[in-house]
């Protein structure tokens, strides 16, 4: 039993390390954004160690940069990370029923697209030690990368900073494109989202609203429209679990 736990932990670390190396690079770009919003390296480190989310932290940094209200921070964070709610639901179905509360509290700490992705590929029930191993390999690199980005962002030449600034968007694209390819409704709504977001940033009476609020309003409206018109079947959700 003891040996099983150890091997699950080590297997988690082994799977988490390549994810952590990717995180290091993307977090560096996030750190540059944090720096431009006026954050220090320590604040960037803290935000990433607690947040462990690319889009979520990016949205949070936008709120900090705009000096918006704490309520707006809560609302933006909720919408930008709503997908983790779905992932945690899926993950909850994969745990052994006798998983303890402290174990559940720890597993919830770093549910991200990638770490969730490797966890659902594990045999059921998921061994919490596997999750701990993967978190320990990946999360410190994510936090470290953010701090380095804040520190090195102003040492790097402007054209390098400009190039790195699209790294996060590249990651977002890599998340939204594969399901758009598999599912025509997702594709249509991704394109609609692009169009609506562009229009909202240009129309005179909407573009004055902060970008965080625009993201919330557009997401809720479009997702509700999609859910009302095209409710998903169970199999389609299963496809998300495997992604």
């Amino acid at each position, binding site marked *: 039993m003891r040996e099983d736990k150890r091997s699950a932990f080590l297997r988690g670390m082994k799977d988490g390390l390549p994810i952590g190396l990717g995180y290091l690079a993307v977090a560096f770009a996030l750190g540059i954004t944090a720096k431009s919003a006026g954050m220090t390296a320590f604040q960037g480190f803290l935000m990433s160690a607690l947040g462990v*989310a690319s889009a979520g932290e990016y949205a949070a940094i936008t709120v900090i940069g705009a000096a918006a209200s704490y309520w707006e921070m809560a609302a933006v964070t909720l919408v930008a990370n709503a997908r983790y709610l779905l992932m945690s639901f899926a993950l909850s179905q994969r745990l052994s029923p006798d998983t303890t509360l402290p174990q559940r509290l720890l597993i919830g*700490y770093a549910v991200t697209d990638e770490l969730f992705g490797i966890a659902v590929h594990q045999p059921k029930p998921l061994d919490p030690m596997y999750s701990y191993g993967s978190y320990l390999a990946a999360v410190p690199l994510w936090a470290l990368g953010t701090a380095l980005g804040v520190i090195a962002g102003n040492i790097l030449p402007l*054209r390098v900073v400009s190039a790195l600034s699209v790294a996060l968007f590249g990651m977002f694209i890599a*998340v939204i494109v*594969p399901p758009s390819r598999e599912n025509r409704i997702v594709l249509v709504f991704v394109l609609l989202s692009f169009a609506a977001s562009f229009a909202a940033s240009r129309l005179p009476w909407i573009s004055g609203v902060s970008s965080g609020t625009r993201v919330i309003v557009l997401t809720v409206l479009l997702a509700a429209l999609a859910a009302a018109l095209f409710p998903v079947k169970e199999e389609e959700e299963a496809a998300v679990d495997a992604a």
Partner: protein
Amino acid sequence: MQHNVYLYILVMFAVIYAVRVLPLTLVRKPIKNRFLRSFLYYVPYITLAVMTFPAIVEATQSPLAGIAALIVGIVLAWCGAGLFPVAVSCCAVVFLLELLLV
């Protein structure tokens, strides 16, 4: 009103941790409501799409480089490239194009 960055981070952490931990601790049965399930299914893609465009075009020094990065990223992801290769390729496209444009 002056805002404190640490308080912002605390609010972010409280919300994000609740989102991740509540389903794991409180809800041990699957959600039945079809509308809610569908809504949660669509949210990630729509919110990421809204955040990506037009922000990617405004992030770079030259808007043209941002558009090129968007197109290259979509094509690579469509062909099955993973998160990291797509992100690096987008950066490379912007860097190379801006050598010529800026």
